[in-house]
Every structure is written in structure tokens, then in C-alpha cells.
């Protein structure tokens, strides 16, 4: 059974058809590259899966059950986590504080429930170790490298039992070495049986880490095929429209 199934999803804003009749499914432990030019509808599609937008038409099913979300918090409750393009980190807080932002651990009772610093440092440290990232939970995010910042944002998705992780341009604007780090982080998520959607403009990254590539153009899905049976040239053609559509 697929983790997530989208059937005939459309979204329009007034007269503008941002996403048009898109269907696909996601399997557990699979990395899917979502590609397309600016304005192709990638972001709108992802924002529907993330609970920011409500689809105009079509249905989403999570592990076979109908999925209706009204706000981003609903998505998180269903095990759908997002790594935002800007990572959504607070520079003035520690790595652990960022990992736990919005769902801090506390101890004690009633009005005397205080933040459980020890437990948060410990768990955050375990997550960084799992991700094989040299990131110290007590360090301020302000002082961190791009790769470490990615690790903090990704560790956030591992706090609860996530089923799907959506990553929006995680490799844009970071150094070559850090890109390799991030791709490794993605593989770690995959190995834990999480379905990863990687939205990216960078062809090499998608062909490096993804199992499947979905190409969008002008709101429509124009390709959905195994990486092994495709090529960067073909995907480029699909993105630009030089190739109309493939099965």
C-alpha cells in the first residue's frame, strides 16, 4: 500500500490553474525528485500535501485513509513533515531548541511545568548522531555551517514518527561538500522507511539520490519514471517542453 496517494488533484487561484489533474503515489522508503521550472506548480502541489492549501479538486489518501487538512499543524499530526527552503531556524537559539521548537519537552506538573533542557539536549544529540552530523545540541544555530543547519532542520522531522518528509530546495545555496552531507541525510531518512519528496532545481542531486523523478510543467505532471530509465537530458527536455510528455 502506498504511503500517500494523490488522485486527480487540481488547484486554481481565481482564473489561474496552478495545478491541473495531478495523480501520483509515494511508497515508504522511496526518494522522489520533484522537478519543474519556476511556476510549474511544484510549490503549490507541495503546499497542498503540507496542509497550507486545500485542493480545489481531487483527493489525497494517507495509508489508504482519506486525508483532509485545514492547517499545517494537521499535516504534522498525520506524520507529514516539511523542511522549508529557508529551513525556518532561529539563529538566536541552540540547535536543540530549534529541533524542539513548537513542541518543547517539559517536566513537572500543572503550572510548574518547566522546560526539560537535559532531555532535549540528549535526544537532539542522538538525532545528530543518527544523521552522522557533527552538530552540537548546545551550540547556537547562528554559528553553524550550512550543512549543520540542514541537519538541525532535518532532525526536526525525525522527532515524531514521520511517514513523509517534504524537502524544498535543500541543496540550493550551500557548498559542494555540504550538498554531499545533505544527500547523505536524505539517504538516512530513506533507510528508516520514510518517503522523501525532494523538490530541486539541481539535476545532479536528483539523479544522485532519488529513486524516481516526477516532472511538472504548467501545472501538469508530464513525467513520472524511475531514475534508472531516465536521463538528465530527457528530464531537461521535459522541464523546458522540448519533450511533450512521456509515459
Amino acid at each position, binding site marked *: 500500500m502506498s504511503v500517500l496517494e494523490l488522485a486527480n488533484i487540481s488547484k486554481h487561484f481565481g482564473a489561474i490553474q496552478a495545478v491541473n489533474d495531478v495523480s501520483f503515489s509515494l511508497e515508504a522508503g522511496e526518494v522522489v525528485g520533484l522537478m519543474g521550472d519556476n511556476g510549474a506548480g511544484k510549490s503549490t502541489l507541495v503546499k497542498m500535501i503540507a496542509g497550507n492549501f486545500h485542493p480545489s479538486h481531487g483527493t489525497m489518501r494517507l495509508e489508504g485513509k482519506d486525508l483532509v487538512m485545514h492547517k499545517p499543524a494537521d499535516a504534522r499530526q498525520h506524520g507529514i513533515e516539511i523542511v*522549508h527552503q*529557508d529551513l*525556518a531556524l*532561529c*539563529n538566536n537559539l541552540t540547535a536543540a531548541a530549534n529541533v524542539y521548537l513548537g*513542541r518543547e519537552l517539559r517536566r513537572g506538573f500543572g503550572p510548574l*511545568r*518547566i522546560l526539560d533542557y537535559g532531555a532535549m539536549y540528549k535526544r537532539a544529540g542522538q538525532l545528530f548522531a543518527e544523521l552522522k552530523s557533527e*552538530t*552540537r545540541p548546545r551550540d547556537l544555530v547562528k554559528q553553524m555551517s550550512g550543512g549543520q543547519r540542514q541537519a538541525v532542520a532535518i532532525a526536526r522531522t525525525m522527532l515524531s514518527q514521520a511517514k513523509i518528509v517534504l524537502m524544498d530546495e535543500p541543496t540550493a545555496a550551500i557548498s559542494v561538500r555540504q550538498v554531499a552531507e545533505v544527500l547523505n541525510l536524505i539517504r538516512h531518512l530513506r533507510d528508516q522507511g520514510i518517503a522523501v519528496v525532494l523538490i530541486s532545481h539541481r539535476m545532479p542531486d536528483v539523479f544522485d539520490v532519488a529513486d524516481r523523478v516526477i516532472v511538472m510543467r504548467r501545472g501538469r505532471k508530464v513525467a513520472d519514471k524511475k531514475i534508472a530509465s531516465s536521463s538528465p537530458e530527457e528530464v531537461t527536455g521535459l522541464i523546458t517542453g522540448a519533450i511533450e510528455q512521456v509515459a
Partner: protein
Amino acid sequence: MAVTLDQTIAQKQHTFLSRLFANQTFWVVIAVILACLFLSVATDSFATSKNIFNITRNITFVAIVALGMTFVIITGGIDLSVGSVLCLSSMVLAVTMHAGYSIEVGILASIATALAIGAFNGLLIAYLGFPPFVVTLGMLSVARSLAMVASNNTVVFQFGPDHQKLLSLGGGAWVFGIANPVLYMILLAAITGFILRWTKFGRHIFAIGGNEHAATLTGVPVKQIKVVVYMISALSAGLAGIIQTGWLGAVTTNLGNGMELQVIAATVIGGANLAGGVGTALGAVVGAALIEVIRNSLGLLGINAFWQGTFIGGAIILAVLFDRIRNFRRSD
């Protein structure tokens, strides 16, 4: 491999001392202590119990409001209305008690007024997206005008049946000869420090100041928290107003005039950053203390009072200068 990944992750980058030396509040504490030592030696009148009593009590009003302001400044906001809110709260208390109501009713009315103003500020800022500067600048004018309306711009110095209770509340010294306002300040500073460091609410305030967009995306109730923050600021102004009324024994409509600038100066000297994300309870108190010590010492050293503004302004710029130097070094 000499160092494993787990060791790296477990490593603490900063020792206690390195963190202390990088802390602006620490250096301001040192400055206050040095100034006090110098004044004790240089003048006969500084280290007298009467002068110490006066200084500590004078610190409190600015410090209490600065504690509330710290919450606002950490979120990256500003509250210019505190001086006027202090005046209005005092006036509501005075007028209510003057009309023959008990001190409890007076305090309740006063606090309710402050909270209502804070909520109004907060709602406009959080839900309608007004710039904090503009909303609270407007409220600065409105609240003071309301105080004039409430009192018909007269001085109120008779507080009805509970007159004595009010005076002893603000002017007494119930424990070890420490002025009551100082006790309130210590209590409020402890509460503020606790909230900032140990509660989820405190953590979220820092998150909003650090990156409001990120806080929203991660599910922090940003709007509600912003409203509460402005209510806390107004509440602290209201409490300071109540205490100051008891101490002064009279309320005029220019009470707290220009106080907002002293309060903001105190928080900034104490290490809060107007850009948001940084600030402590101790810093607010210590900043207020430095301002008061400067003011007091100029008087004792026989320096013309006209110089006060120069010295206090210099302290503000100097305090922030240390912060800038640290940042320059880091970015090199």
C-alpha cells in the same frame, strides 16, 4: 580516529567563564560595582544607609517597567506607551480610592486598565499588523490624555479610607529595612527570569524575536504570544504606577513623563537587543541600576545636573559598543 562523532556531539564549546566574559550584562554589573566602590571612596555621602536606601528605591520604578519591556523587546517589538500607562494606572487608582473605594478595588481597577491597554496595543500589532512603534506612540498620547480626563488635570493626594494602607504599601519597609518597592522589584525580576528561562512561553518569545516566520511555520502561536507580551509590558507599567503612587503619596498627570526612554535605555544597557531575540531579567535590573548610579553619583560629586543626559546617553552608546566590537571580531 581519535575523536568519535559522539564525543564531538557531546562536547561543550563554551566554558562557564568564556560565556560570562562574552556577556554584556556581566560587564555592566562590573561597571556598577566599580562605580559604587569608587563613589564609596571618593565621597562621604554615597555609602550611607540613607543614600543606598534612596538609590535602590529609585532604581525600582524604571527596573519594574524594564522587566515588562524586556518581553516586548525580545520579540523584536517596542512599547513606547509605558510611561503614559504608568500615569493612567496611577490616576485610576488614585481617583477610585479618592472616591471612597477600598484599596483592593483601586488596585483591581488600575490593573484592569493597564491590561486593557496592553491588549489593545497587542491586538493591533499582532492581528492587524500595525508597526509596534506607531501603535504604542499613539497610545503614549492617548493614555496620558485619559489620565488628564480622569483627574481633570488636578493633583490627587487624598486616597479615601485606605489612604494609609496605600502609603505603607509603596513607602514602607517591611523586611530588614529594605524599601518595599525593592522587594517587589526582586520578586518580579525572579518571576521574569523564571518565565524567560524555564517556560515554553519564554522559549517562544525568543523564537519570535529570532525568526518570526520560522516560529509561525513550526507551530508557535505567534499572534497570541505577541498580545500577551504587550499585556505584560502594560501590566508592569501599571504595577510600577501603583507602587509609585504609594511611595509619592500624590499623583500628577506628568508622572512617568519621558519614562519610556529611560526604560528602553535600561533594557538596552542590560544587554537586550532592539532587533529582538536577546534579553534577560537581570539585564533590565542592572541597566536600571547603572542609570541610577550615574545620576546619583553626578549629584554627589557636585557635577552640574545638566550633564546627566550626556553621561546616561554615553552609557547607552558604550554598552552597545561592546556588543558591536564582539560582533566585529566574530565576523572577521
